[in-house]
């Protein structure tokens, strides 16, 4: 579980769905929720909040620029790789702190990921949860 602390900077609501923007250090994260400021009192601009996403939901892109539909992108450097039979765990150092990613070992091999390499970690908007 990756947990990052940030502040809510924007909330866009339509019916019962909201897209919330959270600033962590210099990075902006977006998340989509079935909540509105009316149903969840913690959804207020300026509120401190934690964002949570699972390691297995982190997508790794080689290099630093990618054109994808994924809005949450953080560039960083791989500082550790723990390779298992099927899965690999990567620790990535970014401006928002350390992020853990679990991807398949096949992907690690195909991308030829190494310690010290610059990569981009990406998380889909639908995969980020909020916690007080």
């Amino acid at each position, binding site marked *: *579980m990756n947990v990052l602390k940030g502040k809510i900077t924007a909330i866009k609501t339509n019916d019962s769905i909201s897209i919330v923007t959270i600033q962590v250090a210099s990075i902006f994260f977006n998340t*989509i*929720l*079935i*909540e509105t400021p009316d149903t*969840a009192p913690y959804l207020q601009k300026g509120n401190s909040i934690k964002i*949570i996403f*699972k*390691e*297995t939901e982190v997508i790794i892109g080689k290099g630093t620029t990618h054109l994808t539909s994924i809005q949450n992108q953080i560039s960083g450097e791989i500082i550790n790789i*723990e*390779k*298992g*039979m*099927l*899965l*690999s*765990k990567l620790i990535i150092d970014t401006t928002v702190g350390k992020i*853990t990613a*679990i991807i398949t070992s096949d992907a690690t091999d195909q991308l030829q990921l190494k310690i010290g390499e610059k990569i981009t970690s990406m998380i889909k908007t*639908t*995969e980020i*949860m*909020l*916690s*007080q």
Partner: protein
Amino acid sequence: MIQITLQKELTAASGIMLLDINIHIQQGTLTTLYGNSGVGKTSILRMIAGLLQPDEGQIIVNQKTWLDTKKGICLTPQQRKIGFVFQDYALFPNMTVKENLLYALEKGQDKEIISQLMHIIELKDLQHQKPNKLSGGQKQRVALARALVRKPEILMLDEPLSALDIKMRAKLQDYILKAHQQFGLTTLLISHDIAEVIKMSDIVLNIENGKIIQQGKPIDVFTTKQVSGKFQFSGEIVEIKKEDIIYIVTVLIGSNFVKVVAEETEVQTMKIGDKIIVASKAFNPLLQKIK
């Protein structure tokens, strides 16, 4: 309105513990006392029932003072109008099911209530049996019916469902809820099962070490404060297995097992038997109609 203030020094397994609580209960609500064993839940119920004396305290039920240690008032259990379902049911072995209920009648009370209760709690077929011939769930139902005969002002249930299997539990929870609603009771229930608390109660008091550390609607106390995920269930860890570089955690939710992938740093804080919340975003689960 029921106001309860109680203080008592209790000897717990870990030494002396000071029980110190202050509760306000609305008429007609079902309140659960939640917490691990040995935090004083049973003692609280026993003090409300008058079976245990607090060092200091005050109990006022609908403007009537049941207990006021400062004024030296302490009604006996007989004078407090309560229903109590004991953990061991405490059915009288020498009496049949019906006799157990009849015994609970007050002088001059209409016997109609007995057949009414036997109907609601479905005891007709068992009425001539002695308690030792009954299963755990049946005993439980008799104990519940017996506690209701006097039309108590407070119904208290001391972890009534802990000895029953999951299926039986769900059925009895329904009986309790049915009785609670039909008789407009004010009910106090002890439980350490989160799913049960969420299903049954209007208000939950989370008790730790003789103090109430949290109270409110169960859904608030147990869930939303923690994560925004809409797909949330509480359950108990039954297995943690390392596979490759990840861990697979098996969680019992109600009567279903689910498996969740977890990472080493998460697993380090967990052990088998822990109560946890399984959460996911509403965007992820797939729905498939059952044919």
